[in-house]
């Protein structure tokens, strides 16, 4: 796998994850009051746009590389998501949850690679 393909795989996942963060922010801005309907739909639309970019990037990668080489990147998602949610949404997790996340990633990695 070339460095470019590797970088594209990571960029692809970043689009997927930021789309999810936009969804989360649309449904729950964390102020206990929620968004106005207009703002919620604006954020949802932005999230769907981001997910669409992800979808076509992923489709392009699937065309050019065997699934078993690129699918393990999906296994990284739960941990990358937790890190992003921690940075962007200030969500904090206890150690036990981090261990759970790591196990999920290893398991998905094995499933995708076999």
């Amino acid at each position, binding site marked *: 796998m070339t460095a470019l393909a590797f970088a594209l795989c990571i960029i692809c996942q970043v689009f997927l994850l930021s789309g*999810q*963060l936009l*969804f*989360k922010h*649309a*449904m*729950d801005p*964390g*102020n*206990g*009051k929620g968004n106005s309907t207009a703002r919620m739909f604006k954020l*949802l639309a932005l999230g769907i746009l981001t997910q669409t970019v992800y979808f076509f990037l992923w489709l392009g990668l699937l065309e050019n590389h065997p699934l078993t080489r690129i699918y393990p990147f*999906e296994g990284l*998602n*739960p941990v990358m*998501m*937790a890190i992003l*949610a*921690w940075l962007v*949404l*200030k*969500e*904090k*997790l*206890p150690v*036990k*949850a981090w*261990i*759970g*996340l*790591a*196990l*999920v*990633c*290893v*398991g*998905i*990695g*094995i*499933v995708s690679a*076999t």
Partner: protein
Amino acid sequence: MPEHRTPAPDLARRAGRRLLHPILVVIIGGLLDAAGEILLKKGANSAPPTSGLLHWLSMYLGVSALASIWTWLGIISYILGLLAWLYVLRFIPISIAFPINNVMHLAVPIAAPVLLHEPVPLLRWFGIGIALSGVLLLLKFVAEAEEKL
């Protein structure tokens, strides 16, 4: 609501005592996604009908898989899965909900031998087991957060 969001009390306050419990919904939503994937694959595998409304529609749109009723069931399943996911995001921190939803996708390799007649190697079962044990840890954390309420 304080500015810093610690999941535990937050989670307990907002997720508890709901008719549609978010943890139940995230599991159902993940299974709907998995069902969607299997249905799409079944639709792509099946021989399309040569007449009827769906045949006409698939010719018009230029996607042959759309001729299969399975494909449409798959799309409906995906949409329901997305709605369930958006509901869940209102109540659960995304760093918890996302891995649980992800792992529910493992229902695909579990169901594939039965529904699609695809073989699953032993090592893959091992991976499924590890991922599920991770989810059990996450669910335990959520349950403990609720008990504190």
